[in-house]
């Protein structure tokens, strides 16, 4: 989903790429914006992986 959608609630989630690992969290990047998300629900994650993120939490890996 892109920026004009409601990113704060609901069934919207954003696909972002892992650019840094920080223990139970990871920094992800989407269209140049970076955010730290919790990754317990999908761990272990690797750099470069695409994650579906919502409300500060990675919910799932995204397949190709």
């Amino acid at each position, binding site marked *: 989903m892109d920026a004009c959608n409601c990113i704060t609630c609901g069934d919207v989630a954003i696909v972002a790429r892992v650019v840094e690992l920080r223990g139970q969290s990871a920094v992800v990047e989407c269209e140049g914006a970076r955010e730290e998300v919790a990754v317990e629900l999908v761990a272990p994650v690797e750099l470069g992986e695409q994650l579906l993120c*919502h409300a500060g939490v990675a919910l799932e890996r995204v397949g190709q």
Partner: protein
Amino acid sequence: MKHLSEYRSGEIAAGLAERIAALVEPGSAYKLMEICGGHTHAIYRHGIEDLLPAEVQLVHGPGCPVCVIPMGRQDDAIAIAEQDGVIFTTFADMLRVPATNGSLLDAKARGADVRMVYSPLDALRLARENPDRQVVFFAIGFETTAPSTALTLLRAGAEGANNFSIFCNHVLVPPPLRAILDAPDLQLDGFIGPGHVSTVIGTQPYEFIASEYGKPVVVAGFEPLDVLQSIYMLLRQLTEGRCEVENQYVRVVRREGNERALAVIEETMEVRDTFEWRGLGFIERSALGVREQWGRFDAERRFELPGTRVADPPACQCGEVLRGALRPWECKVFGTACTPERPIGTCMVSSEGACAAYYNYGRLERRSERTPA
């Protein structure tokens, strides 16, 4: 996932639209409900209805978590926010939802400390930074959002936080679907299932729709080609006489969902006996509350709440819109007394709300173009 443009190709969309048109029997009607507000938004934003034959009607479902919260709960939220020493944190859309005495933004203007956050984890961080204040998070959302709240409760427990709580309003997708299927005033032929809710719960919880009610379901992604393909898959099921739960959104959704996400919800929250939905009334076992053993983080236990039921303003027809019985432009205050700038009802507040999506993307011309069946 590869680049988004792959899911937005006009050429492929035109091809899919042709295949959809070829499946449709002229003169018959196909009423398909998109359950999720994210789909409603995508349908209006990308003009998907314009690509469909007149026989296919999309009905907007109850899947906007802002829209389904009844006014009484919003009053409760404001009552918490206005207590001394409270920092009340919320997702942005809830700030503007009208309650009996204005919105949370109005409460902020009156002096309440109301702050917007992107994640409950941000609210917990605020609690850490403000040990002399009570920080409350307004937890709303479907199964997509509940894992984030659950994970935050687990972290709050691990940290021993004593100034953090949540006002829990998490709701579940399958129970209102049963209520809609049981309602006498709406006949639907199939459902476009919510993609990201299904990332968490999987596709299995929709199987009753096919087995008990004989209606097909296709769980769909949110790009225009995802939505078009899911409509094609639904029509194929209908024309072939099949009735199954299919998964269009295979790049993220698995039949069993995310078991770890389900486990953290199960650990911290339990299903309430009943919960009031705007427009749908009380629905049994349709929402989550905080488990007793996590009660120290439950704002409903920590604060005294008015807890009164409040009727919607008489002019507001959000209820009918949420049930799919009325299309947005058929509401008597749509676009006149009720606009995104000055909303009367919740459906006009959130960008996932059917009325706001309809209003923002200029679909007003449909009012004269298509007469709803």
